[in-house]
């Protein structure tokens, strides 16, 4: 329910909800806490689709493609049908993604077990390279953000040698920056700053006429539309799941890709953008099915497939669980609990949302001046709660300013968080591998060579492509 409501608020979205709830889950059993976070994550984009269709403002970038045809449908008086189709595509899409994930885990299990310390360190670097270069417009900015995150993770006591680094004598920095204030600062605070800057008026600054259109009969008709177009639905699910597996490509890319595919393969592409049901089904199916895909690299390799997965990864670490080969070895039960949770949340999210759609959409019309202090207060308490340390609130504010500046100048916040999370891990595994191989020998195992080549290819893909083109032109 938290995920649904936060997902409904344009500009706040699921990642903020997860960042705020993360510190509040400390006292819980790890399985319960991670289930809570995953459930919020799974349903937030479902909530966002309703505001995208009814008021024309997506809850987050993930629902942006749904606006293209969902809102025109509302304008034509078919908002309820579009909502029905979106919710059904989301629920069944999430189910498909979850099932694919459950089937793939046993397949990747032997591969993951073949990984030693050196390979695990290199997987971390590969994941960072993916996130840094594929999400965002500038590769240099993306890579620099990821490396800055790694540099910040070096502050405090080094796990392998016990040396305290870059603390400037401050006892607060002995354990380094806590993950929770960093995540809250980078993801929750910039949204609060954005809302505070807008000051007056409601969050969704549009008319409420779409709210009057909710009819059960047409919602049901919309749901049936998904099954009438099962072919498009399944193809969109495949697109979502596959794109979700590639770290850094992002959910928004999956939804637009599915939307573009639906338009290309439609018998009436001219209808797209003017309110066609296929334009709602395709992005929503891809949107929720991609979660199953993006969980695979997170669980199996400890490399998150998306921004929200990066926060979820933070949740794992806060609760003392290290995703990756170790998790599949020792917490396979938890892994499958989370897969089941992903499937159930997607379905339950829709069941919970249906009776309250018209009421819940009103959340988008809360005044900014009401919601800003409430989010800020909860985020501040969240930053404080883990270590009961006043300085953590200040850290959150510092990272909040940095996060807003990064958002404003198009730096990659996800890469920074990922670098911060993976920095210590990569250093530790590299150190162990270096010691075991008595040198850089760990870089020359077959798996390491594949991973290194892949990392270099990801980073230098554009210059290499340009070089090949130039050579080809030269030959002609």
């Amino acid at each position, binding site marked *: 329910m938290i995920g649904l409501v936060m997902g409904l608020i344009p500009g706040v979205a699921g990642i903020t909800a997860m960042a705020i709830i993360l510190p509040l889950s400390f*006292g819980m059993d790890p399985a319960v806490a991670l289930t809570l976070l995953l459930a919020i994550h799974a349903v937030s984009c479902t909530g966002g689709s309703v505001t995208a269709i009814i008021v024309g403002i997506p809850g987050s970038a993930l629902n942006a493609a749904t606006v293209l045809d969902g809102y025109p449908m509302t304008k034509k008086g078919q908002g309820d049908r579009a909502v029905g189709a979106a919710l059904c595509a989301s629920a069944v899409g999430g189910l498909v993604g979850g099932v694919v994930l459950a089937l793939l885990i046993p397949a990747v299990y032997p591969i993951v077990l073949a990984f030693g310390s050196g390979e695990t360190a290199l997987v971390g670097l590969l994941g960072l390279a993916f996130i840094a270069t594929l999400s965002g417009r*500038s590769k*240099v*900015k993306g*890579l*620099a953000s990821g*490396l*800055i995150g*790694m*540099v*910040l993770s*070096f502050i405090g006591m*080094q796990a*392998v*040698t016990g*040396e305290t*680094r*870059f603390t400037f004598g401050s006892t607060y920095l002995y354990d380094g920056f806590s993950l929770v204030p960093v995540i809250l600062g980078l993801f929750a*605070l910039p949204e*609060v*700053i954005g809302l*505070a*800057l807008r*000051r007056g008026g409601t969050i969704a600054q549009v008319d409420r006429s779409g709210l009057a259109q909710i009819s059960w009969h047409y919602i049901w008709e919309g749901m049936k539309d998904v099954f009438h177009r099962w072919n498009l639905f399944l193809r969109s699910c495949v697109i979502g799941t596959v794109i979700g597996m590639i770290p850094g490509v992002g959910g928004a890319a999956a939804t637009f890709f599915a939307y573009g595919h639906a338009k290309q393969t439609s018998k009436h592409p001219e209808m797209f953008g003017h309110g066609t049901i296929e334009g709602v089904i395709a992005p929503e199916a891809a949107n929720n099915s991609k979660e199953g895909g993006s969980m695979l690299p997170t669980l199996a390799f400890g490399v998150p497939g998306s921004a929200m997965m990066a926060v979820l990864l933070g949740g794992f670490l806060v609760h003392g669980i290290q995703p990756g080969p170790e998790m599949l070895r020792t917490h396979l039960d938890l892994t499958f609990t989370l897969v089941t949770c992903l499937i159930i949340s997607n379905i339950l999210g829709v069941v919970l949302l249906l009776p309250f759609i018209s009421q819940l959409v009103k959340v988008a019309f809360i*005044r900014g*001046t*009401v919601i*800003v*202090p*409430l989010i*800020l*207060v*909860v985020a*501040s*308490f969240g930053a*404080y*709660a883990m270590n*009961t340390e*006043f300085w953590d*609130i*200040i850290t959150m*504010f510092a990272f*909040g*300013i*940095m996060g807003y*500046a*990064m958002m*404003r*100048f198009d*730096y990659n916040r996800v890469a920074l968080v990922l670098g911060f999370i993976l*920095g210590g891990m990569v*250093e530790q595994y*590299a*150190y162990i591998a270096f010691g075991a191989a008595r040198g850089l020998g760990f870089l020359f195992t077959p798996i390491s060579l594949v991973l290194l080549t892949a990392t270099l290819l990801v980073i230098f893909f554009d210059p290499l492509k340009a070089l090949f083109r130039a050579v080809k032109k030269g030959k002609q």
Partner: protein
Amino acid sequence: MRVRASIILPLLFLVVTITVIVLGFQYPIEAAASPWVIGGVATILLFVQVLRETLAKVKPKSQEETEAVAYSGRQYLEAGLWLSCLLIPVYLVGISIGLPLYTFMYQKLHREGWILSIASAVAVFGLVYFFFGGLLRVYLYKGILLG
């Protein structure tokens, strides 16, 4: 020459990475190796970015960028001050009083009604004091005046 706002962030990052490299000389090689390698690569990339920002011609702004810079410096300052003001009551009177007080002040001074402002403050107090402090037994910072 006017300094472009977009150059400030990479410059700050550059200061961080150079500091890390320089301070790395204080530590044994095991502790300094990673900061040198990672900080070194980051420094090169940030230097490239600073050069790019310095040499780039001023492009016409996209709609998104225009919206983003539509706020004046005064608006940024005002919003920033309002948000950072949260630290003052928390520092002085602690978490359980400071957070509700801030909620009330923010809403009331932004012309929200008395009932809503008081209800929000009471809700925040209930959440912090009874739920987290009482039920979950989280230690609540008492502030320098009440601690």
